[in-house]
């Protein structure tokens, strides 16, 4: 086990990408993820790899597309407005089935908003802000260590499924420092990238295209994508649970918000309230089954906490499917819920149990 170092999330995600063997980083500065771009500007050339500061996020995602098309591991990172500019590109990446990793260190919105931490891009990430039917795998780390580990998983998932993996954190995750072990995780057994465009030597030409105009090709392609997505749902859903079994109130939150909520749940238990906690680690695929199962238990209520006006809320409601009441507490536009605020909500829902 390597030693722990104190590192901010933005730098740690860069180092994790290097551990994962990223070949090219393409990005454009934006707060609160700037340390990532700066870190890569320094580290990538040290590793003999490619760093390009693109002229825009639009260019960045297209550079990623080009790099990924050659079979290289490619990534970009940005924050909310920059990710919005990538939506056309992301839809193309989905259509072309090119693997890559996009980091979104979210800030307050809409518009220029603020540089304060937020979780307002959940819909964009999980539903596809671009056009057409497609999905990205969305990973939501809650600590710098988890960020380091999930970044590496992200590259593997991307290659395994030929898919865009988005790592979604908020400004705090990017800025905060925590001790991390920069451990290199074992790489999955991955398929060869026979589809990559590298020069048609000794094989027929490879074509990467998303325009499919004849013979129902595009519908077949969509079917193929949907099947792939279904497979990912089956195999790659991740969730963390805590004190759920006997809970009267189950809190659902992700990322930094989940840590605030966990503190609240711990205090609530101390107060004699049977609170539990579910933290989706993959936002897509969403842990629908875990939450659905938790909802089977009669008399339970759910509390969704987000740094947004209620976006994951919809996924929780879809998972619960009317079997239990689902309440919501959110702070928006860069504000962060406090332990005390969440506790207040928990107290409203659940009775104190005197054992």
């Amino acid at each position: 086990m390597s030693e722990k170092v104190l590192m901010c999330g933005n730098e740690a995600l860069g180092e994790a990408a290097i551990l994962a063997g990223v070949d090219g980083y393409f990005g454009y500065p934006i707060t609160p993820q700037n340390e990532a771009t700066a870190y890569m500007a320094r580290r990538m050339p040290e590793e003999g790899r490619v760093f390009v500061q693109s002229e825009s996020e639009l260019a960045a995602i297209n550079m990623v597309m080009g790099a990924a098309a050659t079979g290289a591991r490619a990534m970009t990172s940005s924050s909310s407005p920059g990710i919005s500019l990538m939506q056309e590109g992301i839809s193309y990446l989905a259509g072309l089935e090119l693997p890559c990793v996009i980091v979104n260190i979210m800030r307050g919105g809409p518009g220029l908003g603020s540089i304060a931490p937020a979780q307002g891009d959940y819909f964009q990430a999980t539903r596809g802000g671009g056009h057409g039917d497609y999905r990205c795998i969305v990973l939501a780390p809650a600590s710098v260590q988890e960020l380091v580990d999930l970044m590496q998983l992200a590259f593997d998932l991307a290659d395994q499924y030929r898919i865009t993996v988005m790592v979604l954190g908020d400004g705090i995750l990017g800025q905060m420092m925590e001790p991390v072990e920069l451990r290199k995780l074992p790489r999955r057994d991955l398929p060869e990238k026979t589809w990559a465009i590298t020069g048609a030597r000794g094989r027929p030409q490879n074509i990467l295209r998303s325009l499919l105009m004849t013979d129902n090709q595009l519908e077949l392609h969509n079917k193929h994508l949907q099947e792939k997505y279904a497979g990912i749902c089956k195999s790659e859903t991740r969730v963390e649970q805590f004190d759920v079994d006997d809970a009267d109130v189950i809190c659902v939150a992700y990322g930094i918000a989940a840590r605030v909520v966990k503190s609240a749940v711990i205090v609530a238990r101390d107060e004699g309230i049977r609170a539990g906690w579910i933290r989706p680690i993959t936002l897509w695929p969403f842990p629908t089954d875990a939450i659905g199962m938790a909802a089977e238990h009669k008399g339970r209520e759910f509390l969704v906490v987000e740094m947004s006006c209620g976006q994951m809320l919809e996924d929780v409601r879809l998972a619960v499917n009317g079997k239990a009441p689902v309440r919501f507490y959110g702070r928006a536009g860069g504000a962060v819920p406090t332990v005390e605020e969440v506790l207040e909500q928990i107290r409203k829902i659940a009775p104190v149990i005197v054992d």
Partner: protein
Amino acid sequence: MMAGNFLEEVIIAGFGGQGVILAGKLLTQTAMKKDLKVSYIPAYGPEVRGGTANCMVVISDESVACPLVVSPTSLIVMNKASLLKFTPALKSGGLMVMNRTLIDVAAGRDDITLLEVPADDIALKLDNPRGANMVALGAYVTARGILTVDDVAACMPDVLAKRYHDTLEANIKTLKAGAAYIREHYDAVVS
């Protein structure tokens, strides 16, 4: 060192140029090196330069759930604006280190432990005019008793950028002066 289960939540606040970010990182690094669980969040404000800066440090012997500090158990304030902003949030029974050189008003709380340290004066006397942060940190560490100034001094090279390593000695001296001030004036509170 403190025994048993504990959760120390610190806010360090001051002017942009006062080195509160460095003090926070140093505190976090030291605690980490002592095998404690830690987290550190800098506040990044809208202003390019100037304005207030602050950071949140959580130290615990259990893994840190919430890294955000809303009601700190300890507060280090380096200027008046910070004092006004954060004093109400300090937990009852908490510890406040106040930079007396730049703050000429009272804390207005009698349910806390208040340490008034003329941080800039002390630093200036040691010919380290930017060392007020170290004075305050030395004072805090000494009073709080989770870490020692020697722990902190040992970690300084990890946190200070290489190009400033020529200031290590001066900064350690300044740090210890802060500790000494506390021992001299507030011996009772030293844990």
